[in-house]
Protein backbone atom coordinates (compact mmCIF):
# COMPACT_ATOMS: atom_id res chain seq x y z
CA UNK A 1 0.00 0.00 0.00
CA UNK A 2 2.82 2.39 0.80
CA UNK A 3 4.29 1.46 -2.56
CA UNK A 4 1.03 2.53 -4.15
CA UNK A 5 1.16 5.98 -2.67
CA UNK A 6 4.90 6.53 -2.98
CA UNK A 7 4.70 5.56 -6.63
CA UNK A 8 1.91 8.04 -7.10
CA UNK A 9 3.75 10.80 -5.28
CA UNK A 10 6.99 10.19 -7.14
CA UNK A 11 5.08 10.17 -10.36
CA UNK A 12 3.41 13.48 -9.65
CA UNK A 13 6.72 14.93 -8.55
CA UNK A 14 8.44 13.86 -11.75
CA UNK A 15 5.64 15.35 -13.79
CA UNK A 16 5.90 18.60 -11.90
CA UNK A 17 9.64 18.76 -12.49
CA UNK A 18 9.03 18.27 -16.18
CA UNK A 19 6.55 21.13 -16.22
CA UNK A 20 9.03 23.32 -14.39
CA UNK A 21 11.72 22.69 -16.96
CA UNK A 22 9.52 23.41 -19.94
CA UNK A 23 8.24 26.53 -18.23
CA UNK A 24 11.79 27.74 -17.79
CA UNK A 25 12.49 27.14 -21.44
CA UNK A 26 9.29 28.92 -22.34
CA UNK A 27 10.49 32.03 -20.60
CA UNK A 28 13.98 32.04 -22.12
CA UNK A 29 14.63 33.59 -25.47
CA UNK A 30 14.30 31.39 -28.53
CA UNK A 31 17.55 30.57 -30.25
CA UNK A 32 16.11 30.68 -33.72
CA UNK A 33 18.16 32.26 -36.41
CA UNK A 34 15.63 33.88 -38.69
CA UNK A 35 17.08 32.84 -41.96
CA UNK A 36 15.93 35.13 -44.74
CA UNK A 37 16.06 38.15 -42.45
CA UNK A 38 19.38 37.34 -40.89
CA UNK A 39 21.84 34.86 -42.25
CA UNK A 40 24.58 32.80 -40.82
CA UNK A 41 28.13 33.31 -41.96
CA UNK A 42 29.61 30.21 -43.40
CA UNK A 43 32.68 28.66 -41.88
CA UNK A 44 35.70 29.20 -44.12
CA UNK A 45 35.95 25.49 -44.75
CA UNK A 46 32.31 25.13 -45.63
CA UNK A 47 31.90 22.91 -48.64
CA UNK A 48 29.56 24.39 -51.13
CA UNK A 49 29.91 23.47 -54.76
CA UNK A 50 33.42 23.98 -56.07
CA UNK A 51 34.47 27.16 -57.81
CA UNK A 52 37.49 28.36 -59.72
CA UNK A 53 39.61 30.63 -57.59
CA UNK A 54 40.45 34.10 -58.79
CA UNK A 55 44.16 34.65 -58.83
CA UNK A 56 44.84 38.26 -57.92
CA UNK A 57 48.06 38.34 -59.96
CA UNK A 58 46.73 37.22 -63.26
CA UNK A 59 43.14 38.34 -62.79
CA UNK A 60 41.90 34.94 -63.78
CA UNK A 61 42.00 31.34 -62.63
CA UNK A 62 45.09 29.20 -62.43
CA UNK A 63 43.64 26.06 -63.90
CA UNK A 64 46.03 24.22 -66.16
CA UNK A 65 43.39 21.87 -67.54
CA UNK A 66 45.25 18.82 -66.38
CA UNK A 67 41.99 16.94 -65.73
CA UNK A 68 43.06 15.48 -62.40
CA UNK A 69 39.85 16.68 -60.82
CA UNK A 70 37.81 15.03 -63.51
CA UNK A 71 39.72 11.80 -63.08
CA UNK A 72 39.50 11.78 -59.32
CA UNK A 73 35.83 12.60 -59.12
CA UNK A 74 33.85 9.60 -57.86
CA UNK A 75 30.60 10.64 -59.49
CA UNK A 76 31.81 12.09 -62.78
CA UNK A 77 30.37 15.49 -62.22
CA UNK A 78 33.26 17.51 -63.62
CA UNK A 79 33.96 18.03 -67.30
CA UNK A 80 37.03 20.09 -68.21
CA UNK A 81 37.17 21.39 -71.74
CA UNK A 82 40.31 23.00 -73.02
CA UNK A 83 42.01 23.92 -76.21
CA UNK A 84 45.43 24.93 -77.37
CA UNK A 85 45.91 28.63 -78.02
CA UNK A 86 49.01 29.82 -79.79
CA UNK A 87 51.28 31.84 -77.59
CA UNK A 88 50.01 30.43 -74.33
CA UNK A 89 51.82 27.85 -72.29
CA UNK A 90 49.88 24.68 -71.79
CA UNK A 91 46.26 24.24 -72.61
CA UNK A 92 43.67 26.95 -72.13
CA UNK A 93 40.45 26.24 -70.26
CA UNK A 94 37.40 26.86 -72.38
CA UNK A 95 34.74 25.45 -70.11
CA UNK A 96 34.69 23.95 -66.66
CA UNK A 97 31.35 22.27 -66.32
CA UNK A 98 30.21 21.10 -62.92
CA UNK A 99 27.06 19.05 -62.69
CA UNK A 100 26.32 19.88 -59.09
CA UNK A 101 23.32 17.56 -58.96
CA UNK A 102 25.52 14.49 -58.80
CA UNK A 103 28.29 15.94 -56.67
CA UNK A 104 28.86 14.44 -53.25
CA UNK A 105 31.19 17.17 -51.95
CA UNK A 106 33.90 14.70 -51.08
CA UNK A 107 36.75 17.05 -51.91
CA UNK A 108 38.74 14.69 -54.09
CA UNK A 109 38.91 17.28 -56.84
CA UNK A 110 40.19 20.02 -54.56
CA UNK A 111 42.70 17.64 -53.09
CA UNK A 112 43.88 16.47 -56.46
CA UNK A 113 44.28 19.96 -57.89
CA UNK A 114 48.03 20.64 -58.12
CA UNK A 115 47.86 24.38 -58.83
CA UNK A 116 45.09 24.85 -56.23
CA UNK A 117 42.88 26.41 -58.82
CA UNK A 118 39.60 25.21 -57.36
CA UNK A 119 38.13 25.44 -53.92
CA UNK A 120 34.76 25.09 -52.26
CA UNK A 121 32.45 28.04 -52.49
CA UNK A 122 30.22 29.20 -49.68
CA UNK A 123 26.95 28.92 -51.55
CA UNK A 124 24.67 27.21 -49.12
CA UNK A 125 21.19 28.30 -50.12
CA UNK A 126 20.70 27.13 -53.65
CA UNK A 127 17.18 26.38 -54.76
CA UNK A 128 15.46 26.69 -58.04
CA UNK A 129 12.50 25.51 -59.98
CA UNK A 130 14.73 24.27 -62.73
CA UNK A 131 17.12 21.40 -62.45
CA UNK A 132 19.33 22.81 -65.21
CA UNK A 133 20.26 25.74 -63.00
CA UNK A 134 22.67 23.53 -61.15
CA UNK A 135 24.85 22.58 -64.06
CA UNK A 136 27.36 25.37 -63.73
CA UNK A 137 30.03 26.50 -66.07
CA UNK A 138 32.49 27.60 -63.43
CA UNK A 139 34.46 29.62 -65.93
CA UNK A 140 31.38 31.65 -66.79
CA UNK A 141 30.65 32.02 -63.09
CA UNK A 142 34.14 33.34 -62.46
CA UNK A 143 33.91 35.85 -65.30
CA UNK A 144 30.25 36.68 -65.66
CA UNK A 145 30.99 39.61 -67.93
CA UNK A 146 32.97 37.52 -70.35
CA UNK A 147 36.00 35.35 -70.25
CA UNK A 148 39.13 37.39 -70.84
CA UNK A 149 41.38 36.37 -73.63
CA UNK A 150 44.36 34.42 -72.40
CA UNK A 151 47.49 36.51 -72.18
CA UNK A 152 49.75 35.82 -75.04
CA UNK A 153 53.41 35.74 -74.25
CA UNK A 154 55.10 37.31 -77.28
CA UNK A 155 58.33 35.48 -76.74
CA UNK A 156 56.52 32.25 -76.45
CA UNK A 157 54.34 33.17 -79.37
CA UNK A 158 57.34 33.96 -81.43
CA UNK A 159 59.00 30.80 -80.35
CA UNK A 160 55.91 28.84 -81.04
CA UNK A 161 55.39 30.50 -84.32
CA UNK A 162 58.92 29.75 -85.21
CA UNK A 163 58.35 26.25 -84.11
CA UNK A 164 55.18 26.08 -86.09
CA UNK A 165 56.86 27.59 -89.03
CA UNK A 166 59.71 25.22 -88.62
CA UNK A 167 57.32 22.41 -88.28
CA UNK A 168 55.34 23.66 -91.22
CA UNK A 169 58.45 23.97 -93.13
CA UNK A 170 59.57 20.56 -92.17
CA UNK A 171 56.15 19.27 -93.00
CA UNK A 172 56.15 21.05 -96.30
CA UNK A 173 59.52 19.68 -97.07
CA UNK A 174 58.42 16.30 -96.06
CA UNK A 175 55.32 16.66 -98.07
CA UNK A 176 57.24 17.83 -100.99
CA UNK A 177 59.57 14.94 -100.67
CA UNK A 178 56.68 12.62 -100.26
CA UNK A 179 54.86 14.17 -103.16
CA UNK A 180 57.91 13.81 -105.19
CA UNK A 181 58.26 10.26 -104.25
CA UNK A 182 54.61 9.75 -104.81
CA UNK A 183 54.64 11.27 -108.22
CA UNK A 184 57.57 9.16 -109.04
CA UNK A 185 55.83 6.18 -107.71
CA UNK A 186 52.59 7.23 -109.19
CA UNK A 187 54.19 7.56 -112.46
CA UNK A 188 55.39 4.08 -112.17
CA UNK A 189 52.22 2.87 -110.63
CA UNK A 190 50.14 4.75 -113.12
CA UNK A 191 51.97 3.23 -115.89
CA UNK A 192 51.61 -0.09 -114.33
CA UNK A 193 47.96 0.39 -113.79
CA UNK A 194 47.50 1.55 -117.29
CA UNK A 195 49.43 -1.32 -118.44
CA UNK A 196 47.28 -3.63 -116.52
CA UNK A 197 44.02 -2.21 -117.66
Amino acid at each position, binding site marked *: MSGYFSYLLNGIKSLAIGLKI*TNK*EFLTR*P*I*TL*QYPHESVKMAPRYRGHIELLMDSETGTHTCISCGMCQKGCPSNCITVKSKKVPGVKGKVLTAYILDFTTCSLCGQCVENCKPAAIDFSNEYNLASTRKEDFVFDLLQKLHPEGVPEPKVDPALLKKEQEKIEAAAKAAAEKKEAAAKAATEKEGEGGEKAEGKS
Partner: protein
Amino acid sequence: MDELIRILSYFVGIAAFLGLNLAYLGWVERKGAGHIQRRIGPKDVGPYGLLQPLADGLKLMSKQLVVPDNADRLLYMSAPVLAMVATVILFVTIPWGENLVPREFDYGLIMIFAVASAAGLSILLGGWASGNKYSLIAGTRAVSQSVAFEIPMLITAITIVMITGTMNLNEIIRSQSGMFWNWNVFALDKSILMPISFLVFFVCSMAEINRAPFDLGEAESELVAGYITEYGGMGFGLFMMAEYGNMMIGASLTTILFLGGWQCPFGLFPGPHWFLLKMYFLIWTIVWIRWTYPRTTLWGLLNLSWKYLIPFSLVNLLVTALFIKVF
Protein backbone atom coordinates in the same frame (compact mmCIF):
# COMPACT_ATOMS: atom_id res chain seq x y z
CA MET B 1 -40.20 37.59 -30.06
CA ASP B 2 -37.69 39.03 -27.63
CA GLU B 3 -36.77 35.54 -26.67
CA LEU B 4 -36.21 34.76 -30.32
CA ILE B 5 -33.94 37.75 -30.79
CA ARG B 6 -32.07 36.85 -27.64
CA ILE B 7 -31.53 33.33 -28.87
CA LEU B 8 -30.45 34.53 -32.29
CA SER B 9 -28.04 37.10 -30.92
CA TYR B 10 -26.51 34.52 -28.64
CA PHE B 11 -26.28 32.18 -31.55
CA VAL B 12 -24.36 34.74 -33.56
CA GLY B 13 -22.25 35.71 -30.58
CA ILE B 14 -21.33 32.17 -29.77
CA ALA B 15 -20.54 31.41 -33.38
CA ALA B 16 -18.20 34.39 -33.59
CA PHE B 17 -16.59 33.72 -30.26
CA LEU B 18 -16.21 30.06 -31.02
CA GLY B 19 -14.82 30.60 -34.48
CA LEU B 20 -12.26 33.06 -33.24
CA ASN B 21 -11.28 30.86 -30.35
CA LEU B 22 -11.02 27.65 -32.30
CA ALA B 23 -8.84 29.32 -34.90
CA TYR B 24 -6.60 31.10 -32.46
CA LEU B 25 -6.23 28.26 -30.01
CA GLY B 26 -4.38 26.55 -32.81
CA TRP B 27 -2.18 29.58 -33.08
CA VAL B 28 -1.65 29.62 -29.30
CA GLU B 29 -0.74 25.98 -29.37
CA ARG B 30 1.79 26.39 -32.16
CA LYS B 31 3.26 29.54 -30.75
CA GLY B 32 3.40 28.07 -27.27
CA ALA B 33 4.96 24.90 -28.54
CA GLY B 34 7.49 27.02 -30.37
CA HIS B 35 8.55 28.98 -27.34
CA ILE B 36 8.67 25.90 -25.16
CA GLN B 37 10.96 24.36 -27.75
CA ARG B 38 13.34 27.33 -27.92
CA ARG B 39 12.00 28.49 -31.23
CA ILE B 40 9.65 31.19 -32.39
CA GLY B 41 6.68 29.52 -33.94
CA PRO B 42 4.50 31.13 -36.61
CA LYS B 43 5.84 34.59 -37.22
CA ASP B 44 6.10 35.61 -40.83
CA VAL B 45 2.45 35.24 -41.75
CA GLY B 46 1.04 38.50 -40.57
CA PRO B 47 2.31 40.26 -37.47
CA TYR B 48 3.36 37.64 -34.91
CA GLY B 49 1.95 35.07 -37.29
CA LEU B 50 -1.55 36.20 -36.42
CA LEU B 51 -2.82 35.54 -39.91
CA GLN B 52 -1.61 31.96 -39.75
CA PRO B 53 -4.99 30.48 -38.70
CA LEU B 54 -6.63 32.39 -41.51
CA ALA B 55 -4.20 31.01 -44.04
CA ASP B 56 -4.61 27.50 -42.68
CA GLY B 57 -8.37 27.76 -42.72
CA LEU B 58 -8.50 29.10 -46.26
CA LYS B 59 -6.12 26.46 -47.43
CA LEU B 60 -8.01 23.63 -45.76
CA MET B 61 -11.23 24.88 -47.27
CA SER B 62 -9.76 25.01 -50.75
CA LYS B 63 -8.33 21.52 -50.51
CA GLN B 64 -9.71 18.78 -52.64
CA LEU B 65 -12.29 16.56 -50.98
CA VAL B 66 -11.41 12.93 -51.31
CA VAL B 67 -13.49 10.05 -50.15
CA PRO B 68 -11.31 6.96 -49.91
CA ASP B 69 -12.28 4.01 -51.99
CA ASN B 70 -13.27 1.63 -49.28
CA ALA B 71 -14.89 4.21 -47.06
CA ASP B 72 -18.55 4.37 -46.16
CA ARG B 73 -19.28 7.55 -48.02
CA LEU B 74 -22.20 8.90 -46.03
CA LEU B 75 -20.77 8.22 -42.60
CA TYR B 76 -17.33 9.39 -43.69
CA MET B 77 -18.73 12.75 -44.70
CA SER B 78 -21.03 13.15 -41.71
CA ALA B 79 -18.70 12.11 -38.89
CA PRO B 80 -16.70 15.38 -38.69
CA VAL B 81 -19.89 17.42 -38.94
CA LEU B 82 -21.39 15.38 -36.15
CA ALA B 83 -18.32 15.96 -33.99
CA MET B 84 -18.48 19.68 -34.62
CA VAL B 85 -22.24 19.89 -34.01
CA ALA B 86 -21.96 18.09 -30.69
CA THR B 87 -19.20 20.47 -29.65
CA VAL B 88 -21.19 23.55 -30.59
CA ILE B 89 -24.27 22.33 -28.75
CA LEU B 90 -22.16 21.98 -25.63
CA PHE B 91 -21.55 25.71 -25.56
CA VAL B 92 -25.23 26.44 -25.07
CA THR B 93 -25.16 25.91 -21.35
CA ILE B 94 -21.83 27.45 -20.42
CA PRO B 95 -22.41 30.49 -18.19
CA TRP B 96 -19.80 32.98 -19.30
CA GLY B 97 -21.12 35.55 -16.85
CA GLU B 98 -23.89 35.75 -14.36
CA ASN B 99 -26.35 36.94 -16.98
CA LEU B 100 -24.40 35.88 -19.99
CA VAL B 101 -25.75 32.42 -20.46
CA PRO B 102 -27.09 31.39 -23.84
CA ARG B 103 -29.61 29.15 -22.15
CA GLU B 104 -29.69 28.77 -18.43
CA PHE B 105 -30.66 25.22 -17.89
CA ASP B 106 -31.32 23.40 -14.67
CA TYR B 107 -29.59 20.28 -15.85
CA GLY B 108 -26.62 21.90 -17.54
CA LEU B 109 -24.05 19.67 -15.94
CA ILE B 110 -25.69 16.44 -16.94
CA MET B 111 -26.39 17.82 -20.37
CA ILE B 112 -22.73 18.46 -20.98
CA PHE B 113 -21.93 14.89 -20.10
CA ALA B 114 -24.78 13.60 -22.23
CA VAL B 115 -23.81 15.50 -25.36
CA ALA B 116 -20.11 14.89 -24.85
CA SER B 117 -20.71 11.17 -24.65
CA ALA B 118 -22.64 11.40 -27.89
CA ALA B 119 -19.63 13.12 -29.46
CA GLY B 120 -17.64 9.96 -28.78
CA LEU B 121 -19.85 8.21 -31.28
CA SER B 122 -18.70 10.54 -34.03
CA ILE B 123 -15.07 9.56 -33.47
CA LEU B 124 -16.00 5.92 -33.63
CA LEU B 125 -18.02 6.45 -36.78
CA GLY B 126 -15.29 8.52 -38.40
CA GLY B 127 -12.70 5.88 -37.60
CA TRP B 128 -14.92 3.12 -38.86
CA ALA B 129 -16.10 4.86 -41.99
CA SER B 130 -12.56 5.63 -43.18
CA GLY B 131 -12.03 2.01 -44.04
CA ASN B 132 -8.49 2.12 -42.75
CA LYS B 133 -7.10 -0.20 -40.13
CA TYR B 134 -5.21 2.55 -38.37
CA SER B 135 -8.34 4.69 -38.13
CA LEU B 136 -10.39 1.81 -36.87
CA ILE B 137 -7.95 0.89 -34.13
CA ALA B 138 -7.57 4.51 -33.19
CA GLY B 139 -11.32 5.05 -33.11
CA THR B 140 -11.93 2.12 -30.81
CA ARG B 141 -9.05 3.23 -28.64
CA ALA B 142 -10.31 6.78 -28.38
CA VAL B 143 -13.81 5.71 -27.47
CA SER B 144 -12.84 3.08 -24.93
CA GLN B 145 -10.59 5.68 -23.39
CA SER B 146 -13.31 8.28 -23.10
CA VAL B 147 -15.76 5.72 -21.74
CA ALA B 148 -13.22 4.65 -19.14
CA PHE B 149 -12.60 8.19 -17.98
CA GLU B 150 -16.25 9.17 -17.98
CA ILE B 151 -16.79 7.14 -14.84
CA PRO B 152 -14.42 8.98 -12.46
CA MET B 153 -15.35 12.26 -14.08
CA LEU B 154 -19.06 11.71 -13.45
CA ILE B 155 -18.45 10.59 -9.90
CA THR B 156 -16.39 13.69 -9.22
CA ALA B 157 -19.07 15.85 -10.76
CA ILE B 158 -21.62 14.18 -8.50
CA THR B 159 -19.65 15.23 -5.43
CA ILE B 160 -19.97 18.81 -6.58
CA VAL B 161 -23.68 18.34 -7.16
CA MET B 162 -23.95 16.92 -3.66
CA ILE B 163 -22.22 19.92 -2.18
CA THR B 164 -24.11 22.56 -4.09
CA GLY B 165 -27.36 20.70 -4.44
CA THR B 166 -27.96 21.74 -8.02
CA MET B 167 -27.03 20.80 -11.55
CA ASN B 168 -27.46 24.30 -12.83
CA LEU B 169 -24.00 25.52 -13.76
CA ASN B 170 -24.78 29.12 -12.90
CA GLU B 171 -26.04 28.08 -9.50
CA ILE B 172 -22.88 26.10 -8.90
CA ILE B 173 -20.86 29.22 -9.63
CA ARG B 174 -23.05 31.38 -7.42
CA SER B 175 -22.46 29.05 -4.53
CA GLN B 176 -18.74 29.78 -4.77
CA SER B 177 -19.01 33.52 -4.34
CA GLY B 178 -16.70 35.56 -2.20
CA MET B 179 -13.00 35.20 -1.72
CA PHE B 180 -11.10 32.51 -3.51
CA TRP B 181 -11.11 30.11 -0.59
CA ASN B 182 -14.80 29.68 -1.24
CA TRP B 183 -14.03 28.08 -4.54
CA ASN B 184 -14.71 24.42 -4.59
CA VAL B 185 -11.08 23.56 -5.19
CA PHE B 186 -10.11 25.07 -1.84
CA ALA B 187 -13.34 24.26 -0.02
CA LEU B 188 -11.75 22.01 2.54
CA ASP B 189 -14.67 22.54 4.84
CA LYS B 190 -16.99 20.89 2.37
CA SER B 191 -14.74 17.96 1.76
CA ILE B 192 -11.16 17.52 2.81
CA LEU B 193 -10.28 15.87 -0.50
CA MET B 194 -11.43 18.70 -2.73
CA PRO B 195 -8.00 19.57 -4.26
CA ILE B 196 -7.50 15.93 -5.15
CA SER B 197 -10.88 15.78 -6.69
CA PHE B 198 -9.99 18.84 -8.73
CA LEU B 199 -6.91 17.04 -10.02
CA VAL B 200 -8.91 13.94 -10.78
CA PHE B 201 -11.45 15.96 -12.70
CA PHE B 202 -8.82 17.87 -14.63
CA VAL B 203 -6.93 14.73 -15.60
CA CYS B 204 -10.18 13.06 -16.62
CA SER B 205 -11.23 16.01 -18.72
CA MET B 206 -7.86 15.89 -20.44
CA ALA B 207 -8.28 12.22 -21.16
CA GLU B 208 -11.87 12.69 -22.23
CA ILE B 209 -10.94 15.15 -24.94
CA ASN B 210 -8.08 12.95 -26.17
CA ARG B 211 -5.35 15.43 -25.45
CA ALA B 212 -1.71 14.53 -24.92
CA PRO B 213 -0.46 12.70 -22.98
CA PHE B 214 -3.66 10.74 -23.48
CA ASP B 215 -3.93 11.25 -27.22
CA LEU B 216 -4.01 7.58 -28.07
CA GLY B 217 -6.57 8.24 -30.74
CA GLU B 218 -4.03 10.18 -32.72
CA ALA B 219 -0.94 8.35 -31.58
CA GLU B 220 1.26 9.68 -34.31
CA SER B 221 4.13 7.29 -33.95
CA GLU B 222 1.92 4.24 -33.89
CA LEU B 223 -1.23 4.87 -35.84
CA VAL B 224 -0.10 7.52 -38.34
CA ALA B 225 -2.75 10.12 -37.54
CA GLY B 226 -5.29 7.96 -35.76
CA TYR B 227 -8.93 8.29 -36.61
CA ILE B 228 -8.26 11.30 -38.81
CA THR B 229 -5.75 9.46 -40.98
CA GLU B 230 -8.00 9.42 -44.01
CA TYR B 231 -9.43 12.88 -43.54
CA GLY B 232 -8.02 15.71 -45.56
CA GLY B 233 -9.16 19.25 -46.12
CA MET B 234 -12.05 20.50 -44.10
CA GLY B 235 -12.97 17.10 -42.66
CA PHE B 236 -9.66 17.22 -40.90
CA GLY B 237 -10.21 20.87 -40.06
CA LEU B 238 -13.56 20.14 -38.46
CA PHE B 239 -12.10 17.37 -36.35
CA MET B 240 -9.32 19.66 -35.21
CA MET B 241 -11.77 22.43 -34.41
CA ALA B 242 -13.94 19.98 -32.51
CA GLU B 243 -10.87 18.99 -30.54
CA TYR B 244 -10.13 22.58 -29.61
CA GLY B 245 -13.81 23.13 -28.85
CA ASN B 246 -13.75 20.15 -26.52
CA MET B 247 -10.63 21.56 -24.94
CA MET B 248 -12.52 24.77 -24.23
CA ILE B 249 -15.45 22.83 -22.81
CA GLY B 250 -13.17 20.79 -20.59
CA ALA B 251 -11.42 23.88 -19.31
CA SER B 252 -14.70 25.76 -18.80
CA LEU B 253 -16.27 22.90 -16.94
CA THR B 254 -13.31 22.63 -14.62
CA THR B 255 -13.47 26.37 -14.12
CA ILE B 256 -17.16 26.25 -13.33
CA LEU B 257 -17.04 23.31 -10.99
CA PHE B 258 -13.85 24.07 -9.12
CA LEU B 259 -12.50 27.51 -9.81
CA GLY B 260 -15.61 29.55 -9.28
CA GLY B 261 -16.48 30.38 -12.86
CA TRP B 262 -16.98 34.10 -13.28
CA GLN B 263 -16.33 34.81 -9.62
CA CYS B 264 -13.40 37.03 -8.80
CA PRO B 265 -10.80 35.60 -6.45
CA PHE B 266 -11.20 38.59 -4.16
CA GLY B 267 -14.92 39.10 -4.46
CA LEU B 268 -14.61 42.17 -6.67
CA PHE B 269 -16.24 42.81 -10.02
CA PRO B 270 -17.24 39.30 -10.98
CA GLY B 271 -17.75 38.91 -14.66
CA PRO B 272 -16.93 37.08 -17.86
CA HIS B 273 -13.35 38.33 -17.87
CA TRP B 274 -12.56 36.21 -14.83
CA PHE B 275 -14.17 33.24 -16.46
CA LEU B 276 -12.14 33.67 -19.61
CA LEU B 277 -8.97 34.26 -17.63
CA LYS B 278 -9.38 31.03 -15.71
CA MET B 279 -10.44 29.11 -18.77
CA TYR B 280 -7.49 30.29 -20.82
CA PHE B 281 -5.16 29.51 -17.98
CA LEU B 282 -6.41 25.95 -17.91
CA ILE B 283 -6.21 25.69 -21.67
CA TRP B 284 -2.67 26.92 -21.52
CA THR B 285 -1.92 24.30 -18.89
CA ILE B 286 -3.30 21.64 -21.19
CA VAL B 287 -1.11 22.91 -24.03
CA TRP B 288 1.87 23.14 -21.72
CA ILE B 289 1.35 19.58 -20.59
CA ARG B 290 1.04 18.38 -24.13
CA TRP B 291 4.44 19.72 -25.06
CA THR B 292 6.11 18.36 -21.97
CA TYR B 293 5.22 14.71 -21.62
CA PRO B 294 5.51 11.65 -23.77
CA ARG B 295 2.40 9.67 -24.56
CA THR B 296 1.03 6.94 -22.34
CA THR B 297 -0.04 3.57 -23.61
CA LEU B 298 -3.60 2.31 -23.61
CA TRP B 299 -2.87 0.01 -20.69
CA GLY B 300 -1.12 2.69 -18.71
CA LEU B 301 -4.13 4.86 -19.28
CA LEU B 302 -6.66 2.25 -18.18
CA ASN B 303 -4.46 1.48 -15.20
CA LEU B 304 -4.52 5.11 -14.26
CA SER B 305 -8.28 5.15 -14.51
CA TRP B 306 -8.95 1.94 -12.61
CA LYS B 307 -6.14 1.98 -10.12
CA TYR B 308 -6.05 5.63 -9.20
CA LEU B 309 -8.80 7.84 -10.51
CA ILE B 310 -11.85 5.66 -9.84
CA PRO B 311 -10.82 4.67 -6.28
CA PHE B 312 -9.93 8.26 -5.52
CA SER B 313 -13.17 9.61 -6.86
CA LEU B 314 -15.15 6.98 -4.96
CA VAL B 315 -13.33 7.75 -1.72
CA ASN B 316 -13.93 11.37 -2.42
CA LEU B 317 -17.62 10.72 -2.89
CA LEU B 318 -17.82 8.90 0.41
CA VAL B 319 -15.84 11.55 2.26
CA THR B 320 -18.01 14.29 0.83
CA ALA B 321 -21.16 12.47 1.84
CA LEU B 322 -19.69 12.08 5.30
CA PHE B 323 -18.87 15.78 5.49
CA ILE B 324 -22.34 16.72 4.38
CA LYS B 325 -23.95 14.45 6.96
CA VAL B 326 -21.59 15.27 9.82
CA PHE B 327 -21.07 19.01 9.45
